[in-house]
């Protein structure tokens, strides 16, 4: 799932500027599941913007809406009436949804209300961990289902570095919490599976051009194209 965090309120205010009619647009898929940008959160931000405008004596109309998926044209059609009436749209979707919105309504000012941060999984309620780097060439089959691309701080592809100590990485999260060494996890799980030999296989350098280093990617499923 794509996860995102809401931008600080003053950043959003700066993006909205002097606009008189604001539409806060949520997206009811990934960002709703990570409690950042669904309809509920869109309503909360709209209320905050109205309170702030009221406090400072500004006449600002703030509405909210949400699309089932902001990243698909068809769902954007369903909210186009509200978008048409707004001077600025604050999108709470991930970067994909925000860009779809900006492209679909190209004459409108569409601004982000969130920072999209990762492809993660909910570890437990309201806690998400990064799990995929969308590198374009999955190695999970050789790494016992642990992704070294995003779970190793250095994205090493051939075993741990010297900074791994008792299963923990030398890097800490910004909150100061310890991070499991991905290569330690890989080794432990390969051992449990009796597949330690995979650890000693020489891997050629990873082709990073299949990931975001190779420029914008495009995928076409020929067999599914309309005829």
């Amino acid at each position: 799932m794509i996860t995102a965090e809401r931008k600080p309120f003053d950043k959003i205010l700066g993006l909205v500027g002097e606009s008189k009619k604001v539409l806060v647009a949520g997206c009811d898929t990934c960002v709703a599941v990570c409690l950042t940008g669904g309809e509920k959160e869109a309503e909360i931000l709209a209320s905050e913007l109205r309170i702030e405008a009221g406090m400072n004596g500004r006449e600002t109309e703030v509405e909210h809406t949400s699309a089932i998926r902001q990243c698909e044209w068809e769902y954007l059609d369903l909210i186009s009436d509200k978008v048409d009436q707004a001077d600025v749209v604050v999108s709470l979707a991930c970067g994909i949804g925000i860009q779809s919105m900006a492209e679909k309504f190209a004459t409108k000012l569409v601004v982000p209300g969130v920072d999209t941060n990762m492809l993660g999984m909910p570890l437990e309620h309201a806690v998400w961990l990064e799990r995929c780097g969308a590198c374009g060439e999955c190695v999970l089959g050789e790494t016992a289902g642990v992704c070294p691309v995003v779970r190793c701080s250095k994205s090493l592809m051939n075993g741990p570095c010297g900074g791994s100590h008792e299963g923990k990485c030398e890097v800490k999260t910004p909150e100061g919490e310890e991070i499991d060494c991905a290569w330690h996890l890989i080794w432990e799980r390969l051992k449990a599976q009796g597949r330690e030999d995979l650890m000693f296989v020489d891997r050629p350098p990873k082709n990073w051009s299949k990931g975001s280093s190779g420029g914008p990617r495009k995928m076409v499923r020929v067999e599914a194209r309309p005829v």
Partner: protein
Amino acid sequence: MADAAQPDFEPEIIVFACHYCAYAAADLAGVMRLDYPSSIRIIKLPCTGKLEVIHLLRAIEAGADGVYAAGCLEGECHYLKGNLWARQRVNHVKKLLTEMGLEPERVEMYNMSSAMGVRFAEVANEFTARIKELGPNPVKRKGVSPYAAAREAASEIALPEDTDTVADQPNRPLAPLATTKEG
């Protein structure tokens, strides 16, 4: 930001009170003939755990000078953890208000049991004094009654005042704030 304290300022305060404790405590305070300010307007909930961030914000948006949730004592929630959820949400709203430049003290979470009529009156007095100190909510809208609007915004979670049980309350849709008029 609010002006300094005004001597004739009568705050309008919304209380989200749990059916099982604070609402009964308010009843008890009445029976005990305890004095507490008329600024307090109560919205009865089946549990403060039903209270969400948006309900608190809507009350502030409607011009309430202060809003507080009154739930059961911690560890004694009828639904086990509803009051703990409420506290987290109230704390989150405090953060949001701070970001907006409003005083976080305008929202609060209190805990009391149904036997604590005296505490109910005490909290009402304490919170009213706090809000008087802060002054009026700068977001006042002409013709909008904070209580009516907050109640309408919370209609999907609020219990009618005359209900004795919390069973089978139908969910009602949110009405737009602007249509809620005084009286």
